[in-house]
């Protein structure tokens, strides 16, 4: 059990700064997921916590101990690698026992711990096999087992599920989360998969280009993304973005030529005539009849994707040069080339500063 604290952590490779000062506090027993596109520095961050990369600036604390200069083996952490990093010449049992053996645990205790972990992970019958005789999911479990037997104070996961097929990934995701709950071990989990991030995390860190753009619970991040990047990264399909401008009276935002959306509330964050990016999630759009009372967007449908439970409409809105996607529940009778009308509740609207990309406004505040 431990608390992990990152204070303004910086990483530089030579002249290039890849992590620009990340602050993060992981509570005891918390499961924090770091999510971001490839190359955003999330793995580097994890490797710094593990001690596999040197910290160029800032401090990493495990409980009250500053660990910047502490060897990986003395940090009391265990890591699950993307490729599992199982020792191929050792049996499952030897793989799990390796760390304990090196730390000179008594034989009996090693055996006890390995057997307990094997029971927990349903690996009992595979203990004498070599890793190459196991399936991907089983290898993943062995990697987990190797982390568990050490009873570390922090688990680190480096994209542990990305080598598995889709179905297994969903299953392992649940298993890892249940296991972590049962053991109550503080965990830092890195992934590029936003579904994994949303479903597993107690709290999420969304990283982009070496910066932690937003830290919060999955729902907070979904509902109140702090920037265009976060808004576009979390949610599938991505949020629709349209260029717009705040009206002179600050009561509405104008997109396209003259399509005006009333804002539920006026805040000081926005100024008259300010150029903004308007964000709307595909799932917040719904079909409507054209009527003068309700504001609606005409959408010329290019493509209909039927997912079963939902249907995705891809299309163009006149005078807007961006592709718009709407996610509708059920299977509406819409054909390619047809024009449909889409409506949304203004309080589902997001506004972002066009230059900085920072969030200015979410309609939800107002409601």
């Amino acid at each position, binding site marked *: 059990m431990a608390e992990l604290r990152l204070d303004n952590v910086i990483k530089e490779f030579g002249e290039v700064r890849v992590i620009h000062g990340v602050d993060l506090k992981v509570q005891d027993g918390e499961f924090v997921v770091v999510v971001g596109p490839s190359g955003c520095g999330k793995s580097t961050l994890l490797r710094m916590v*593990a001690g*596999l990369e040197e910290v160029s600036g800032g401090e990493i604390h495990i409980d009250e101990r500053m660990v910047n200069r502490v060897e990986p083996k003395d940090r009391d952490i265990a890591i699950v690698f993307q490729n599992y990093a199982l020792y191929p010449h050792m049996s499952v049992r030897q793989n799990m026992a*390796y760390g304990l053996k090196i730390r000179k645990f008594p034989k009996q205790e090693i055996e006890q711990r390995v057997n307990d972990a094997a029971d927990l992970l349903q690996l009992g019958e595979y203990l004498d096999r070599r890793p190459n005789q196991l399936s991907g999911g089983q290898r993943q479990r062995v990697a987990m087992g190797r982390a568990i037997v050490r009873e570390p104070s922090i688990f680190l996961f480096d994209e542990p599920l990305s080598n598995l097929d889709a179905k297994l990934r969903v299953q392992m995701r649940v298993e890892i989360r249940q296991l972590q709950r049962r053991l109550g071990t503080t965990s830092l989990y890195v992934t590029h998969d936003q579904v994994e991030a949303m479903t597993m995390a107690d709290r999420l860190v969304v990283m982009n280009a070496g910066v932690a753009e937003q830290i919060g619970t999955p729902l907070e991040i979904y509902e109140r993304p702090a920037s265009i990047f976060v808004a576009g990264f979390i949610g599938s399909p991505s949020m629709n973005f349209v260029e717009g401008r705040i009206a002179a009276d600050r009561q509405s935002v104008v997109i396209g030529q003259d399509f005006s959306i009333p804002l539920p509330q006026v805040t000081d964050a926005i100024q008259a005539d300010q150029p903004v990016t308007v964000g709307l999630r595909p799932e917040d759009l719904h079909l409507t009849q054209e009527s003068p009372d309700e504001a609606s967007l005409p959408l010329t449908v290019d493509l209909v994707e039927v997912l079963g439970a939902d249907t995705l409409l891809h299309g163009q809105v006149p005078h807007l040069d961006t592709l718009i996607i709407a996610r509708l529940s059920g299977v509406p009778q819409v054909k390619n080339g047809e024009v449909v009308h889409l409506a949304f509740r203004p309080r589902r609207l997001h506004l972002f500063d066009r230059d900085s990309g920072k969030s200015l406004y979410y309609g939800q505040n107002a409601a």
Partner: protein
Amino acid sequence: MLKRVHFRRSYLPYLLVLPQIAVTLVFFIWPAAQALYQSLLIEDAFGLSYEFVWFENFIALFRDGNYLHSFRITIVFSAAVTFSAMALGLCFATMADRVIRGSSVYKTLLVWPYAVAPALAGALWAFMFDPTLGIISGFLKTVGYDWDHRLDGTDAMMLIIVAATWKQISYNFLFFLAGLQAIPKSLTEAAAIDGAGPFKRFWTIIFPLLSPTTFFLMVVNVVYAFFETFGIVHAVTAGGPSRATSILVYKVYRDGFVGLDLGGSAAQSVILMAIVISLTVFQFRYIEKKVQY
């Protein structure tokens, strides 16, 4: 319906494999057969007459103290060369694997000795160890060791071991480096987190994972020490002093071309051939079946 394909009977396939077969026949099968045949003959020194004697040449060999001595020193020589060339190759490869800047220069330099002809490698070391002019023997003299490989059999053996090892390190280095680079970095990282220090990591993770490479190199090195060191021995010691460095392959040459005992020499080469064949068989069997992950 698809038409069934018929190939016309043609000589083309035979023509295409002909060069290969011709080369094998002329350069391998024929001499090997000749050696086999001659090993059963006793011929006079002028090649005017011969007598078919079945296995007498072989029997004579194994009763000959000189031959058994040669066998013994060959085993010592090849064991020493194999061990030191592999140990040093592995050592350099492990170090080169950690170098990041300028690693290609480093690697290129380490590979150079492999391009030096055996006789030249021998001459090089013979100069450095020359009892009167050599820099290394001069140094040895200052620390109180009187080096003279022309008179001292042990010194001579050490010298050819050094020269033969030096030439083979490059080869081992290359293979070990490739083997090391094939081991995922995350394995050593996992071991580091599991608490293993650098030495422990090397012996419990890296070395076992290199075992296919190690085994392959062992066979190759033994074959090298047995057969390809002729040039070094010839240039440095010519088998002396007093047969102290007359390893098997050198003795074949001495007895056959200098001593003109063609039958005995052929019998020795047949034995060498048997050794290399069994090593090769052993290697293929073992590498394909046992040492694998």
